[in-house]
């Protein structure tokens, strides 16, 4: 494979960029489903960060064959990220379930419109 000389911190940099874009989506979009997507982008950026922490250039997969002592990447962060992905998916599923309920009660999933509906009711 072709190698080019870039600083290896590109992984961390990229994960932080993705995190910030996800946070941007979460903050600026009033649509709740878009917010969920933003949340997921944030989470996967963090998982990417963890995988990058464990990544060793030229390391093999952490699958141990009997008797081999090849250089492998650190398996601990990726093991942790399995749990992380699970947690993120369950949060997503739960959020979507509640979003459907919000739609049933307010008729919209736009946060600004929900605030309008709520303030109308209180007046």
């Amino acid at each position: 494979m072709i190698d080019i000389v870039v600083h290896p911190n590109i992984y961390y940099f990229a994960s932080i960029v993705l995190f910030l874009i996800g946070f941007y989506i979460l903050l600026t979009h009033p649509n709740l489903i878009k917010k969920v997507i933003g949340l997921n982008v944030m989470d996967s950026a963090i998982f990417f960060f963890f995988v990058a922490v464990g990544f060793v250039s030229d390391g093999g997969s952490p699958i141990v064959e009997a008797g081999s002592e090849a250089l492998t990447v650190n398996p601990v962060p990726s093991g942790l990220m399995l749990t992380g992905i699970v947690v993120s998916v369950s949060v997503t599923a739960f959020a979507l379930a509640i979003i459907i309920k919000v739609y049933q009660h307010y008729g919209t999933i736009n946060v600004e419109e929900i605030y309008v509906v709520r303030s109308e009711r209180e007046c």
Partner: protein
Amino acid sequence: MINLFHFVLILTLIVVVISVAKIKDLLSAVILFAVYNLIMSLLWQQMRAPDVAITEAALGAGVTTVLLVAAISKTGRLEK
């Protein structure tokens, strides 16, 4: 030293994410998000974390997309 393939994948990821942020049609955004997750899982496979990659492909790209599509079909497709 960094593999060129990784670099290309990372750039694609950022481009896809920005288009997810910009697109108005929620269904397209969800599909782009699935693409994002698939590229991410490819990248992780390249970064020698195959178990995370397989889980991300099954959950991030599969289940999350199905759930999001289900939610969109119940709420509404266009972002207002």
